[in-house]
């Protein structure tokens, strides 16, 4: 397995752990959920960044196929993220239209799960593209 595939797998696993941590924080520290969500996202980003450093996942160590797959998975993930973000915003608008304000918990959910969705789709797209050949 290439380091890039390991990176994608680790990203998805860390994202799954982050979701578990988020629900734990929501049930125990709901008043500090915004801080908890940001901390968990920070943890997720740092873990993936450390892995990239350790496994030497660098652009100059990739060949042309790796770079093509990286661009493709990035485009797929960002398109999916934008779609998720837009649809969730639409849903929030319709749901809270009468009240004219959106509860902060919904905004935290949008932020947190938007980022998690981005990581999941990026990881999945990377693994699928490597399996398909690029």
């Amino acid at each position, binding site marked *: 397995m290439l380091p890039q595939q390991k990176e994608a797998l680790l990203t998805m696993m860390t994202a799954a752990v982050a979701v578990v941590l988020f629900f734990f924080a929501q049930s125990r520290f709901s008043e500090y959920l915004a801080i908890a969500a940001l901390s968990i996202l920070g943890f997720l980003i740092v873990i993936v960044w450390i892995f990239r450093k350790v496994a030497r996942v660098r652009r100059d160590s990739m*060949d*042309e196929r790796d770079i093509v797959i990286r661009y493709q998975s990035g485009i797929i993930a960002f398109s999916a993220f934008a779609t998720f973000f837009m649809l969730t915003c639409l849903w929030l608008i319709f749901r809270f239209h009468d009240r004219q304000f959106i509860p902060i918990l919904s905004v935290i959910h949008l932020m947190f799960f938007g980022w998690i969705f981005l990581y999941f789709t990026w990881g999945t797209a990377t693994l699928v593209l490597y399996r398909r050949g690029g």
Partner: protein
Amino acid sequence: MAAGRFTNTIRRLRFDSQEMTQEELAKRVGVTRQTIIALEAGKYLPSLGLAVRIARVFKVAVEKVFQLEER
């Protein structure tokens, strides 16, 4: 524009070149072995630069390595 499918003769050329391994070819053209595997399986289309480098390793023209099957 005419549609077509690319095929290649990398595997045959490797065997004709004293059974060159995928690893060796990968090293000589500057890619990973997985890329050579994907190329041989027809799952990945190389850049023009990589196609030329592969042809140079086997000392043949690019058209001898990659063919476009017109439909």
